[in-house]
């Protein structure tokens, strides 16, 4: 058990280089507290797996250090790091039985039979594999095989961290929920540090205490699920989290108000004057927008489309070329109508060059 620190880590698959575009991971610093449940969230190809492999030692980073507590393990081989990792697709040892598969990590570390047996049986029960314990692993379904992979990751009790690389991709949805809550339960019970890589936001938000959002080889935000939802620090986080994602629309700042297509909206805060070259955008969640009758004060918009998705309705509205999504329990307007879009100013964020800025209360 240990805190895992990444210090100035950067990795390029083509070797050290001065061109930042060659780097799959750009310089990053991060500490994973012992016992935390983390999710690493981001689109495919953003460097999540690279980061995981650096922690487990399957990859040696081009630059930077990996520290377990205060020991530098950057050059330490995987088998000496005491890390468990579960991969996206099931990896099983075909010629072994389920029991032997689960026992394999312990056997390799020279544990005694009396220690291995009860542990394997306990884990098999937890994963629902006990009736297949003595069948050859290769005869099982993809689901069961992935459970074996999970089991091999969970079998050792004193690992520094368990890394999950999108482990539930091949599992069917019903079982997915079940296994995810199993993992959560195991986390509470044993207090392993768990790092869970996924590109599925629901998975990330339900699993983790803290979510790390990655985008193009960089960490764009680290925070609780609420923070990611309420105050995304980068426009990407806004887009990526939530369904539909945050509305991001260009605007201009003018003292205590912003101008969207020359319509003025008064804000809660005063923002510093920005240089002309800066890209200024307003970001607001569809949940914090309200459509009011056209007479009311607000941004005049045209309704393009209203979708009823059961629990609530989603409207697509436009001011010239800029569109907004609005989520409301009930929407009275019809397609083609004009309406007034009202902003919840407490939840309105301003982004300069994709990064969140804060203003001053006044």
């Amino acid at each position, binding site marked *: 058990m240990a805190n895992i620190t990444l210090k100035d880590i950067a990795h390029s698959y083509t070797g050290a280089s001065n061109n930042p575009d060659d780097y799959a991971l750009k310089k990053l610093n991060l500490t994973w507290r012992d016992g935390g449940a983390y999710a690493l969230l981001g689109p495919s190809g953003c460097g999540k797996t690279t980061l995981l492999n650096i922690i487990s030692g399957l990859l040696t980073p081009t630059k930077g250090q990996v520290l377990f507590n205060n020991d530098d393990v950057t050059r330490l081989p995987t088998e000496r790091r005491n*890390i468990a*990792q579960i991969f996206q*697709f099931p990896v099983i*040892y075909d010629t072994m*039985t389920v*029991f032997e598969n689960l026992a*394999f990590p312990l056997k*390799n570390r020279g544990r005694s039979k009396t220690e291995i047996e009860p542990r394997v049986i306990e884990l098999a029960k937890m994963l629902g594999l006990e009736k297949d314990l003595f069948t*050859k692993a290769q005869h099982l379904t993809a689901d069961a095989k992935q459970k074996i992979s999970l089991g091999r*990751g969970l079998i050792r009790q004193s690992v520094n961290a368990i890394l999950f690389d999108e482990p539930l991709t091949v599992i069917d949805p019903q079982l997915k929920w079940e296994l995810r809550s199993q993992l959560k339960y195991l986390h509470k019970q044993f207090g392993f540090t768990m790092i869970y890589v996924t590109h599925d936001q629901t998975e990330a938000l339900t699993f983790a205490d803290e979510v790390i959002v990655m985008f193009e080889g960089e960490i764009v935000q680290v925070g609780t699920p609420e923070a990611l939802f309420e105050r995304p620090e980068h426009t990407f986080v806004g887009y990526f989290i939530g369904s539909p994602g945050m509305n991001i629309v260009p605007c201009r700042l003018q003292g205590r108000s912003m101008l969207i297509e020359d319509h003025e909206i008064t804000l809660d805060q005063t923002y510093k004057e920005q240089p002309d070259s800066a890209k200024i955008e307003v970001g607001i969640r569809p949940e914090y927008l309200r459509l009011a009758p056209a007479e009311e004060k607000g941004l005049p918009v045209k309704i393009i489309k209203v979708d009823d998705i059961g629990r609530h309705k989603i409207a697509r509205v436009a001011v010239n070329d800029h569109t907004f999504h609005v989520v409301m329990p009930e929407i009275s307007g019809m397609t083609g109508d004009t309406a007034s879009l009202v902003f919840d100013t407490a939840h309105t964020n301003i982004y300069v060059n994709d990064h969140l800025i804060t203003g001053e209360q006044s």
Partner: protein
Amino acid sequence: MIAKQTNQKAWFMVLPVFLVVAFSAVIPLMTVVNYSFQDTFGSNQFFWVGMTWFRDLIHSERFHDAFLRQIMFSSIILAIEIPLGIAIALTMPKKGWGVPVCLISMALPLLIPWNVVGTIWQIFGRVDIGLLGHTLASLGFDYNYTQDPVAAWLTIIIMDVWHWTSLVVLLAYAGLCSIPDAYYQAAKIDGASRLAVFRYIQLPKMQRVLLIAILLRFMDSFMIYTEPFVITGGGPGNSTTFMSIDLVKMAIGQFDLGPAAAMSLIYFLVILLLSYVFYTVMSNIGEESSNGGA
């Protein structure tokens, strides 16, 4: 109920295949079967002799010796080429400029015709002018494949290993390359030793290609003819007279068509039987222990 329409026209489609197979395999084979039950003194006169040739052959010491030599040869070949082939495949690089270099140098021996391979080694091993033979002789080794049965065997075995191990290497290498990286990564995470990786990942994943390698190498080595014929002609004495060489001697040298036909059939059945046994055993290797426990 709808009456089922039967249309026999489809059989005509099969006719060409049937004819080709008949002329290329069935009729020649039946001719051999025909010879094996008859005796001839030339001028196209045949006499029915029943099982005589088979009975004679089964009890003939000459056949026993050739058969034993053949079994011994194939066993030695398999025992050397399969492990050696796997070992070489394991050391071959997985990426980079080394891959094409290795693959091409491995494929080269396979491209040389059998009789050329025989001739190369025949000259290579000659004591008077051959690089190998002359060097060994000058170093004081008593090496002469035309006089010493051990030297003759060694020459033929080394030649076959040189010629055919590449095939095993290429097959095993193809098997190794098809293993996803995740397996090796998982093995590292699980703390598996190099030996365990070989035993539990590489070997099981190579099982199918190895089955093909063993079958091919067994059949080829069991039927070997050209190379020993070119190098030693079956000598010294009869020490390298393998079954195919013996068969040709009997059929063409002595013109004993009946006994030769009987021998061909037995030869054919032995190859068929042993290949079947190899295939069954290898395909079941993975399944056997799964019945234990539970």
